[in-house]
């Protein structure tokens, strides 16, 4: 990891207050969509946030995109703190952080021409000459493998894969430092996914941009990312370099996810860990370890009462599970000694 990460997120929380009426009594509750998340994204690297729906990965993305305001915690891009940005600094941030969303059908304005969509981050943030903009549009369109001559067309004239390329071109046009990829291939046809993923990887080097990849498909995470963080109920439960995580998943939830993943071949045999029940409601998250009600490896009362900390295990592999408490304690002790 580079010494100065592109993005540093620390203790990020986003709680939504909800009021409900239960038997004529007003009950105020809090949805802890994101509950204390910290991570770095290194320069030119890809961090994948993996988890099932409702785990908080999309909310995290929204917070970084400044589409929503965190309850607490900091988000830093380089030296800039994202909170309370104004004027020039705000525009600068908007240029530096871009996004590609999941659905190529709804993420491109059907009423705008491709060139307008691609150049929007440029047009709205800085005065640039028309010629500069046209040149830049052509450049990024070419980079994503589209014919710059098609810049006058409308999105509906393109297929899903092509649209996702347009979205990427638009994200790249302002030469950002970080692009958030929110499930960028999950709604594409199978035969298109590989070309799109390859494109993302190729352009990362070419444009020296960092990716924060929001994804539910573990195989995609493995193919695309340098580092993986697994989220469950608003918290990161495991975080490691991709190869470390895939070679030896530690957290029971991560293990369960691996077990549930579909095999690449009929002969692949998987450990049978089938989780019972569904993800609990974030309105009323379980006490202690949020995973304990479904955890097949629960070790005892401690899981129900104490929230496990995210601690480093064997060097750079962080996990938040009481199973690894001893080891972590030992490591801390040896470090102190």
């Amino acid at each position, binding site marked *: 990891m580079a010494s100065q990460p592109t993005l540093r997120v620390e203790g990020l929380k986003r709680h939504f207050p909800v009021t409900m009426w239960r038997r004529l009594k007003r009950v105020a509750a809090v949805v802890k969509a994101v509950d204390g998340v910290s991570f770095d994204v290194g320069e030119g690297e890809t961090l994948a946030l993996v988890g099932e729906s409702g785990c908080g990965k999309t909310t995290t993305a929204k917070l970084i995109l400044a589409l929503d305001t965190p309850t607490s915690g900091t988000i830093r891009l380089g030296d800039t703190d994202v909170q309370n940005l104004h004027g020039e600094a705000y525009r600068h941030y908007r240029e530096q952080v871009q996004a590609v969303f999941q659905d190529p059908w709804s993420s491109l304005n059907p009423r705008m021409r491709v060139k307008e969509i691609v150049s929007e981050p440029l047009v709205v943030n800085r005065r640039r000459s028309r010629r500069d903009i046209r040149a830049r549009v052509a450049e990024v369109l070419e980079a994503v493998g589209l014919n710059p001559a098609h810049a006058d067309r409308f999105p509906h004239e393109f297929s899903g894969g092509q649209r996702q390329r347009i979205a990427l071109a638009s994200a790249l046009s302002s030469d950002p430092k970080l692009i958030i990829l929110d499930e960028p291939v999950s709604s594409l046809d199978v035969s298109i996914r590989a070309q799109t*993923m390859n494109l993302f990887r190729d352009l990362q080097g070419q444009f020296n941009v960092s990716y924060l990849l929001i994804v539910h498909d573990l195989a995609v995470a*493995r193919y695309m990312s340098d580092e993986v963080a697994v989220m469950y109920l608003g918290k990161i439960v495991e975080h490691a370099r991709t190869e470390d995580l895939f070679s030896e998943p530690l957290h029971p939830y991560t293990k369960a996810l691996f*077990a549930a993943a579909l095999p690449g071949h009929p002969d692949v045999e998987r450990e049978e860990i089938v989780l019972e029940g569904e993800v609990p409601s974030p309105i009323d998250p379980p006490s202690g370890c949020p995973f304990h009600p479904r955890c097949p490896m629960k070790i005892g009362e401690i899981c129900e009462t104490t929230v496990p900390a995210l601690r480093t295990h064997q060097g750079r592999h962080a996990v938040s599970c009481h199973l690894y408490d001893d080891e972590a304690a030992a490591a801390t002790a040896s470090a102190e000694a």
Partner: protein
Amino acid sequence: MLLEVKDLRTYLFTKRATVKAVDGVSFYLRRGETLGIVGESGSGKSIMALSLLQMEPKPAGRIVGGEALFRGDDLLRKSQGEMRTIRGRRISMILQDPQTSLNPVFTIGNQLNEAFVTGKQGLARGGVRKAVVDVLRKVNIADPERRVTAFPHQLSGGMKQRVVGAIAISCSPDIVIADEPTTSLDLTIQAQYLRLIKRLQDTTGVGVIFITHDFGIVAKMCDRVAVMYAGKIVEHGPVRSIFNHPSHPYTQALINSVPKLEERTERLYSIPGQPPAPGQELVGCRFAPRCEFADERCRQEYPPQFEGLSRHSEHTADCWRLEDPTWRPSRH
């Protein structure tokens, strides 16, 4: 042979073009067997499945040819009235999206009742209720007595899909067609659901046609698999035979373009181009424009079906390249 489909053709007649959505498809299904039909969106797999029940999208869609013999009877020649006695009772279907496939304004119980009442006229009122609760229990829904009165929006996605499953098996059909039943489910829920289907199949011996775009599901669930591309089945065979010796370039490309969980892939195979647009008039091999092996003949003439690939009698594929025996994969 439970079901034998021969040269099924369903075209969509729109003002602008005639879309050959299903363009001469043949396959079969045995008792207790799971057949996977793999294809991308637009390949015609869903329309093909609906055609079997004469439910092709009207008014544009029309079955223009072929036959579908269900226990020897041609389903395509039956009247809509006769089809009603088959739908749900002999052949049922699980649709893709549990969020939308349950009617939001009726309770779960109501919608299951209907399945029973239309299926088995003989059941008395109390009998229906008991049957509803039983079938909910069968699909692992906790506390089924209470769930009967719930509306769909009160259930989670996974539960809804189980209810859809319950409706499908309520009349103990011979065939269940599952059209991408897990795409909108989370990973762990998907695993639960697939396990459920497998168990139900084991206990009832129902034949399952699994429609999917995901080779992973095929690998996990199916005995045989048929690969569809642009309205045609381009390759077909036992699941291991296909995985070990994919013979059609499209099958090969698909398998190679999917990232693996088990191993690190340096670079995925990337299939060039886009799937053909509907209504695009195609001669020759449908995959030719994207195929790295294609030559002039591929673009002019549709290839014949080559059988007995990888020394397996059931393994077939449509590709000119297989004329050359060296290209035919052999069983290890």
